[in-house]
């Protein structure tokens, strides 16, 4: 292989692996919930992997992301490890947030993930502030703000997009349009075209197939470079689909979407299957190698789950720790 091809192929395999890791993580999380081993509930990212991975692979560790209630995928894609993630989901001390945040607040500041957020649209301000901070501090960090189509209902998003546009901040608003907000279709919640809502502020907006990791990655690389050159902000609408219910408990969902629709996305538009097929077709990897990757990931995930299940809870004395940070 030529060095360039090799380099690309490394990146491709990393993206494949990262998507597979997200899927494996979610399958295990779902299992934990179904077997009543996980407290609370959680929102599965399965089906949307190409969005998080395509975007985060275009970022540096020092770049920031903000995430959502459906945040495991973003967390893995930005570089997190399975063990502290599962520990967090189970409320264990070794979790990324010492068990205090859980699925809806998982954050990983070492990799620039400023955290999931249980308020829809709640991270729009935080993300835009991180972009402002980069400008204030003179770093070249770019921020990606992930949010769902439903978050377009939150007014604060328009406030911060306006400021980002006025001040040319290095931020990408990544709108994951998975067609539903909870149990309601996007058309019933959003008048007009989604991209128009950013264009109204003079922000360049792009629509991309969120099931195509390479398309997502390519567009993001371009936009990140432009952001670093002071040409931000940008808005990207990523068309995608969540395979599971809104949350793990949303089992009977035919009243808001059909089984046919679900099957169509799973069978024909799966980002991992399709990317895997392309990789083998292009002879960048053999089907066996891909199987091996997935097997290895499955083992990793299983080991992390077992570890997390056995890991200790935080000491009860932690309950009133971390309410306030120490000041100098």
């Amino acid at each position, binding site marked *: 292989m030529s060095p360039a091809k090799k380099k690309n192929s490394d990146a491709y395999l990393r993206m494949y692996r990262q998507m597979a890791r997200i899927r494996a993580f979610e399958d295990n999380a779902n299992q934990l919930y179904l077997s009543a081993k996980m407290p*609370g509930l959680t929102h599965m990212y399965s089906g949307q992997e190409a969005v998080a991975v395509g975007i985060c692979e275009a970022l540096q560790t020092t770049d920031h992301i903000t995430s959502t209630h459906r945040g495991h995928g973003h967390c893995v894609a930005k570089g997190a490890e399975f063990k502290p993630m599962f520990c967090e989901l189970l409320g264990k001390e070794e979790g990324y947030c010492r*068990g205090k945040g859980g699925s809806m607040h998982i954050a990983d500041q070492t990799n620039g993930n400023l955290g999931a957020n249980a308020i829809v649209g709640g991270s729009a301000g935080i993300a835009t502030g991180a972009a402002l901070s980069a400008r204030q501090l003179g770093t070249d960090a770019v921020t990606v703000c992930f949010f769902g189509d439903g978050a377009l209902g939150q007014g604060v998003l328009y406030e911060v997009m306006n400021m980002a546009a006025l001040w040319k901040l290095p931020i990408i608003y990544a709108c994951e349009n998975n067609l539903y907000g909870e149990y309601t279709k996007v058309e019933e919640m959003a008048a007009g075209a989604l991209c128009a809502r950013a264009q109204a502020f003079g922000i360049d907006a792009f629509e991309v197939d969120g099931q195509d990791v390479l398309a997502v990655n390519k567009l993001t690389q371009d936009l990140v470079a432009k952001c670093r050159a002071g040409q931000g902000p940008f808005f990207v609408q990523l068309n995608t689909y969540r395979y599971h219910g809104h949350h793990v408990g949303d089992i009977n969902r035919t009243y808001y979407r059909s089984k046919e629709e679900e099957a169509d996305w799973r069978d024909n538009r799966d980002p991992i299957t399709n990317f895997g097929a392309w990789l083998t077709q292009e002879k960048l990897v053999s089907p066996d190698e891909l199987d091996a990757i997935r097997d290895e990931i499955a083992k990793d995930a299983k080991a992390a789950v077992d570890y997390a299940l056995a890991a200790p809870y935080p000491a009860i004395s932690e309950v009133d720790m971390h309410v306030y940070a120490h000041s100098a």
Partner: protein
Amino acid sequence: MRKITLSQAVNEAIAEEMRRDETVFLMGEDVAEAGTPFKVLSGLVEEFGTGRIIDTPISEPGFVGMAVGAAMTGSRPIVDLMFGDFLFLVMDQLCNQAAKTHYMSGGKLNVPMVLRTNLGATRRSAAQHSQSLHALVAHIPGLKVALPSSAYEAKGLMKTAIRDNNPVVIFEDKLMYQDKAEVPEDEYLIEFGKANILRQGSDVTLVATSSMVQVAVKAAEILADEGISAEVIDPRTIVPLDEETILASVRKTSRAIVIDEGHQSYGITAEIASRIAEKAFYYLDAPVLRMGAMDVPVPFSPALEDLTVPTAKGVADRARAIVRGDKANAA
């Protein structure tokens, strides 16, 4: 008498009022076909249609503001706020607009709206889906605040709320949706500002709200086994507050504990305790104690979360201590 869940009780109250009064409508996220995530409103859209059970985008400030305007112009909207934690998003509409319109207009404009939402932790929902924020709205003149503690209470208070000509915020306890209680088939209302004495007693008064009413009742049972007689009072509404019933009880028992699931500091227990301590001062044999939730964001971990909320055992322990004349808490 038949028993129904709190969820059914709320559903019935809304359905009855919507049948009675055509100007009542309901709006919120996933309230129609989905019947809310807690399924409390299931069936309403089938009876009243999407014209009166209205699914909104995820725009809490927007649709609460719209409810204010609708209420000012002849409608009687009920707004469904999926989690009490989202109150923070709608405070301007609720507190700067809804609460003040009647007063600022010199009594000429009314805002007859109901905001139904919920409170309560220990569901492993972490810090942004577990708060009990009723103290915030109770502090703002112009709002009424109701805290049903059972299916019976939920139905009667909801019906009164819908008929009230002021903005009413009603908090249901998320953990209680499946709890059943006797609820008459015949129509009834529960007057605002009249506390409910759930249990008579002579040694100590337990004033408890919402989710903590059951905790107080259980504490009273524990205490009864030990020969201590606790009176349990549920104020039902914290605005207006039935001070008289509470004071009368404390004048009799000479001791009081106030229990509430909001954060303790600057919360509900402070107001009620300080009124007791001031107005029943010469009757008190012991300091009025307060038991609120810990002053910490609600932690996700099951190992931590349950520590943050008062328990029946905790209440019984403290009641026992003051009844036995323990001065440990006083300096």
